[in-house]
């Protein structure tokens, strides 16, 4: 028997009791402040003044009516698709296929925009809205069906479907939907004015749809029987079975809705902002949405706030790019730093540290 005396570790991690909500909020705020400071150091390292860069980000996003409109325009698809993935995440269904669902919704909506643009404007808008929802919903339903039938891994499945959707757009652009008036250049034609979403306060009306969805989802998740079912299934499927819930049906229904909301984001982006269908219709928004949803702890109201802040950062950094020549990729780095700190602070909410006392324990 070796009688070695090992020392107590320098720092030990211990689990703490749940902190009071006020303290948790304080910690999160502190994390945000630290993130801004760390981002500042990063900017400093690049040789710029962090205060002026941060100032430009803020002024860039708000300096004029046009700037605010542009910020909101960035926010619309991000907010809607964050709400979409939240539905699935509440159920602990790892839908990382928002990207594909956005595209699928956009494709189906674009069909009506391209080939039925002679319909009455409001009928067309209504049909496009439904088409977006159904397109995205069906795209979300595919992995859900395979999940309940064969218990496939939804993370991989939804991810792979993103690429399929993306290449369908490429196919349509190069083939059947190629703009005949583009002189051979592969692109899909611009939608006619009749198929465009109307503007409210100078911004496409998608922002109204987004805000309505925030309220609807908040109520749906919190006060309806279906919302309750989602929470129970997410927590534990044996409990759901015990409560005589039809788990399969709930998974299918929720994934359809999750995809449908993302599909609406695609429709709004294509017919409200891009006025055509491009392969950039989602442009990574579906992935950012995952971050937004988690940062906001899957609360629709908080999601609205977080996605607005993200949009400010993005719009602001494009202004930084034009006035300082600093690449917008730096905005992504800043986003990542914020995420690192805010998610990292969850660890400090749950755990505490004990430092070794002088002289050791014995």
């Amino acid at each position: 028997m070796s009688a070695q005396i090992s020392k107590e570790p320098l720092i030990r991690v211990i689990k703490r009791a749940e902190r009071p909500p006020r303290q948790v909020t304080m910690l999160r705020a502190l994390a945000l402040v630290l993130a801004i400071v760390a981002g500042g150091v990063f900017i400093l390292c690049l040789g710029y003044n962090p205060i002026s860069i941060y100032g430009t980000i803020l002024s860039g996003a708000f300096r004029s009516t046009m700037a605010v409109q542009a910020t909101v325009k960035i926010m619309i698809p991000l907010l809607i698709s964050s709400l979409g993935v939240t539905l699935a995440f509440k159920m602990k269904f790892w839908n990382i296929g928002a990207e594909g669902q956005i595209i699928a919704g956009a494709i189906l909506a674009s069909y009506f925009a391209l080939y039925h643009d002679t319909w009455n404007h409001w009928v067309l808008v209504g049909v496009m809205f439904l088409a977006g929802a159904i397109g995205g919903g069906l795209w979300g339903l595919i992995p859900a069906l395979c999940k309940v039938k064969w218990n496939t891994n939804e993370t991989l499945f939804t991810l792979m479907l993103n690429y399929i959707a993306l290449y369908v757009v490429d196919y349509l652009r190069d083939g059947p939907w190629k703009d005949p008036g583009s002189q051979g250049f592969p692109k899909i034609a611009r939608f006619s004015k009749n198929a465009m979403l109307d503007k409210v306060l100078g911004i496409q009306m998608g922002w109204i749809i987004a805000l309505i969805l925030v309220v609807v989802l908040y109520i749906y998740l919190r006060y309806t029987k279906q919302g309750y079912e989602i929470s129970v299934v997410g927590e534990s499927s044996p409990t759901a079975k015990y409560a005589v819930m039809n788990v399969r049906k709930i998974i299918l229904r929720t994934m359809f809705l999750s995809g449908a909301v993302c599909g609406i984001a695609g429709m709004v982006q294509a017919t409200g902002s891009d006025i055509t269908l491009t392969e950039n219709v989602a442009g990574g928004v579906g992935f950012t949405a995952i971050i937004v949803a988690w940062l906001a702890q899957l609360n629709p109201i908080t999601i609205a706030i977080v996605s607005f802040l993200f949009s400010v950062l993005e719009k602001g950094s494009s202004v930084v790019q034009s006035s300082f020549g600093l690449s917008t990729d730096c905005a992504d780095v800043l986003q990542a730093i914020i995420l690192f700190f805010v998610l990292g602070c969850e660890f400090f909410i749950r755990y505490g540290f004990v430092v070794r006392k002088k002289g050791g324990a014995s």
Partner: protein
Amino acid sequence: MSQKESMTSAIQCHQITKTFGPVVANDKIDLEVRYGEILALLGENGSGKTTLMNMLSGIYHPDGGSIEIGGKAVTINSPVDAMNLGIGMIHQHFKLVEMFTAMDNIVLGTPEKKLPPKVLRQRVLEICQSVGLEIDPDKRVYEMSVSEKQTVEILKVLYRKAKILILDEPTAVLTPQETQKLFAILRRMRERGCAIIIITHKLQEVLEISDRVTILWKGKSIATVNTKETDRRQLTELMVGRPVVLSIKRPEPKNVATSIQVERLTVNKPDGTVGLKDVSFEIRSGEILGVAGIAGSGQKELCEVIAGLTKAESGSIKFHGEELLGKSPMEIFDLGIHMGFVPEDRLGMGLVASMGMVDNMLLKSYRNGKGPFIDRKPAKELAESLVKKLEIVTPGVETPVRLMSGGNVQKVLLGREIESNPSVLITAYPVRGLDINSSYTVYDLLNEQKEKGVAVMFVGEDLDVLLELSDRILVLCHGHITGLVDAKKMTKEQIGLMMTGSTEQEVIS
């Protein structure tokens, strides 16, 4: 302390303290165990037994106090440290690789694992022989019975030459006969000079096997007594912290009538193996039917098939003549049959851990009322009345139930099921993990239901309780019924024999 005493002392803990957030799990605990003795560590659930042992085996680190092994102060940082100090722990939940053979599991993680299998097998068999254990070194763990798995666990620590053995509730999963075998082995190891700590809350076993008993109460070591000088009553009082009445009430059954008639029921487990085979019995209103059996003998399947959560292969379940099989739980409910079910896994099945009491009350009733919206008002009222009626301790009815203690969680679950006015109440291990106080509350609640004319089924593991509480006992073994007997006329040993496959006739004759 005299020189002689410290020579024989294997472990000495001084003022060990460990806190988890606001909970003080161990509060200045003193504990001593000597080589060549068996020390029983007695205490209710949550009194800090397992925490203390986890610190000795290097899983946790104490916040204060010191540990001496063989007279030397040590710091145990990891299970490897503990092993090097000669401490071996046999956990309540086995830590074995199911796909490996007994021998692979035993040598896993030791430097000798690369030796030729022949040599290793020889060594394992030698250890077996020296303490009188029997094991087939090439049998795979998933094919083993619970007691065989335990044998592997014991061999694992013996192979690592542990001189100090810690067993965490080793008898919880064993039949009375297997327990006797285990005790024989422990006695032999004591003779060979090992120090043994056995954690348990079964008083009879404490009196039977140990030399000394240390009693923990609410995280404090309140007393250490010599087993010879104590008795059941004194130990209970020390353990609970006040005098208690130890007998369970058993009111005479009244108006007994067949409520549920099960005939030739066969149920498969999800993996296709037999869960229940050809079982027939009845559950009567106004009576408590106890169900005994080794863990995994078909109890889970029995509960779930009656509750309508699992499909049967064949057979029938009739409620007052109405066939239940093939009907969905909703249809059964519509027939006016209210089935209360308290599943084994409370937080994983019976309740939603992250939700508060109010939302948990809704679990089975959220569909009530028209329209897409949930009405939380009745649930809130129900939760508040349960808190008062069952004296549930919680900061509020919206506090997540996972933050509540085991006893209170069970009160929430049982309370909800009873409030639904069931005609049949199925409970699986309703007192598992509860302290004595809460256990008696549960027994009282079950008796209350019985007197109201509810047909109660009680799946239990403590045979003493089963014999005292039930009117009849159904014994399961590998999915078969090996006995359906009058609880008043049976002994623990007879039930134990039936649990391992002897039939009623064999046992009684």
